[in-house]
C-alpha cells in the first residue's frame, strides 16, 4: 500500500503518479488521504491498480477510468466515473449529478443515493445504485445497465435507446419513449450477476425492467406538421 497525501502532494503529481503505473503487470494498491472535496482525483487511469480515496471528493472523480478499481470512502461530487471505459468505481456514500455519464464500460457502484441525471447518455457502462436516483436519469442512454435498488425520480429514461433500466422501488415518472418491459430469464441472469458484483442484497425478481418503446428512433411522417 502506497499512500499519497493531498495535503503535501499536488493534484497534478497525484494523477501523474497513478497514470505512470500504466503497463506495469503487478497490481498495486494506492491510498489517497486528505482529498477534501478536490476535483478530478484519480482520472485517466489505465492499469489494473486499486486506488482508495479516504474521504469525499469533488467533480469528475475517476473520470475516463480504464482497468483500475477506484473506491471512494465518502461521497463524490458531480460527474463521477464520467466516460469510464472499464474497471470498477465504488462510491461508499452518495454521488452527485450525472454519475457515470457517457460511460462506455466497467462497473460503477454507488452505495448511497445518486442525484439527477445518473447514467445520462451511458454507452455500455453498468451502474448499480444501492439507494435512490434523481430526475432525468438515463436520459438518452444508449447501452449498458442501470440498476437501482431504491426509487427513481422524474422522467426516467427519457429518449432512451437500448440501455436496460432495472428499478426495485417506485418510479416517479417515465420520460418520453420509456416504458416498462417484461422481465425475461436473460434479464434475471444479467441482474443476478450485477447485484452480486455490486455486493447488493436484493433479489432480481423484486425489480421491474424499463426500456425504450423505440417510437423516437425514426422520423414519423405524421409529425411533419409539428415542424
Amino acid at each position, binding site marked *: 500500500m502506497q499512500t499519497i497525501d493531498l495535503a503535501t502532494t499536488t493534484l497534478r503529481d497525484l494523477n501523474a503518479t497513478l497514470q505512470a503505473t500504466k503497463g506495469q503487470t503487478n497490481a498495486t494498491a494506492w491510498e489517497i488521504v486528505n482529498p*477534501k*472535496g*478536490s476535483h478530478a482525483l484519480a482520472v485517466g487511469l489505465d492499469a489494473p491498480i486499486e486506488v482508495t480515496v479516504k474521504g*469525499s*471528493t*469533488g*467533480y469528475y472523480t475517476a473520470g475516463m477510468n480504464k482497468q483500475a478499481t477506484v473506491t471512494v470512502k465518502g*461521497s463524490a*461530487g*458531480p460527474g463521477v466515473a464520467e466516460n469510464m471505459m472499464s474497471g470498477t468505481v465504488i462510491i461508499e*456514500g*452518495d454521488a*452527485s*449529478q450525472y454519475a457515470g455519464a457517457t460511460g462506455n464500460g466497467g462497473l460503477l457502484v454507488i452505495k448511497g443515493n445518486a*442525484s*439527477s441525471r445518473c447514467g445520462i447518455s451511458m454507452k455500455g457502462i453498468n451502474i448499480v445504485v444501492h439507494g435512490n436516483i*434523481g*430526475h432525468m436519469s438515463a436520459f438518452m442512454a444508449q447501452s449498458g445497465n442501470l440498476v437501482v435498488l431504491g426509487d427513481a425520480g422524474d422522467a426516467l429514461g427519457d429518449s432512451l435507446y437500448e440501455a436496460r433500466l432495472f428499478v426495485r422501488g417506485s418510479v416517479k415518472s417515465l420520460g418520453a419513449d420509456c416504458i416498462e418491459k417484461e422481465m425475461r430469464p436473460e434479464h434475471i441472469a444479467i441482474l443476478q450477476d450485477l447485484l452480486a458484483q455490486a455486493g447488493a442484497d436484493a433479489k432480481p425478481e423484486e425489480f421491474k425492467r424499463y426500456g425504450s418503446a423505440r417510437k423516437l428512433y425514426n422520423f414519423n411522417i405524421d409529425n411533419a406538421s409539428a415542424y
Partner: protein
Amino acid sequence: MCGIVGLFLKDRSLEPELGRLLTDMLITMTDRGPDSAGIAVYGDDTGLVKLTVQSAFAERDFATLAEDLGGAIGGPVSLSRKDTHAILSLPSDKSAAARAALTGLRPDLRVMSAGDSIEIYKETGLPKDVAARFGVSQMSGRHGIGHTRMATESAVTTMGAHPFSTGMDQCLVHNGSLSNHNSLRRELIREGMTFETQNDTEVAAAWLSHKLAQGVELGDALRAGLDVLDGFYTFVVGTKDGFGVVRDPIACKPAVMAETDQYVAFGSEYRALVNLPGIEDARVWEPEPATVYFWKH
C-alpha cells in the same frame, strides 16, 4: 458559474467564529467566482437600525456623515467605517427619514442593506482581498451568507456583486441565470419597487421582498417563486431569523449541505465545507430540486 457559502449557527459559542469560518469557506470558492465577492452577516439585534452604506469616495463621504445625518433626522447616529463601507446605527423609527436624507446629503452613497441585524459588504476583486478589506474574519454573528461571482449577464461592479438586499434584514445570493428578469423587473417597477442594477439576481431578491411585504411567509414565497422565476438557480436567502435554500427543478447548479448539532452549512461544493468543525461526522446531503429548506433560530 458562481460560488455560494452559508453558515447558520445553532451553537451560540461558535458565534465569535462566524466570520473566520465563512471567510475560509468563501476563499475556497474563489475558482467559482474570482471577479467579486460579498458577504452578509447577521449579528445580534441592538435595538437600533443598521444601514450599511458604500461609497467610491469613502474619505469624503464618510468624514462628517454621522453628524450631518444626525442633524437631518434629529436623532443620534453613529458611524463605524470599514474600508469603502460604513455601518450607520440610528433609532429604528428614523430609518425611512435617514434613507431619504442620505440621497440629498451624499448623492454618491449606495445603501447596501438596512435592518436590525444585517450588514452587507461587497466589492469587486478576489474573495480573499475583499474579505481582508472588510476584516470579515473578525466578525461575529448568528448566521451569514457569502458569494463569489463570475459574472455572466451584467457588469462586474460593486453593485453587481452579491448579496442583494431589497428589504429590511433580507438578502439573496444566486448561482445561475434568470431568463425572465427583464419582464419581471418591469412588472415590479410598476408595483413600486426600485432597482439599482440591470442584474437578474436583484430581480429575484426584489420579487421575494415584494411577496414578503404582502405578508407572505418566506417558505411560501420561495415555493411560489418556483413558478415565477424562470431559469437556472440555486438561491440562498437570509432573513433576521435564519436562512433558506431553494434550487430550480432542473437543479444543474450545484449545492451541498451539512448539518451537525452546532450548525447548518451550505456550499456550492463540498470543498467549501471541509474545514468546518466536526464535518467528518456531519450529515451531508444534496438539497432536492424544487424543494424549499429553511432554518430559524
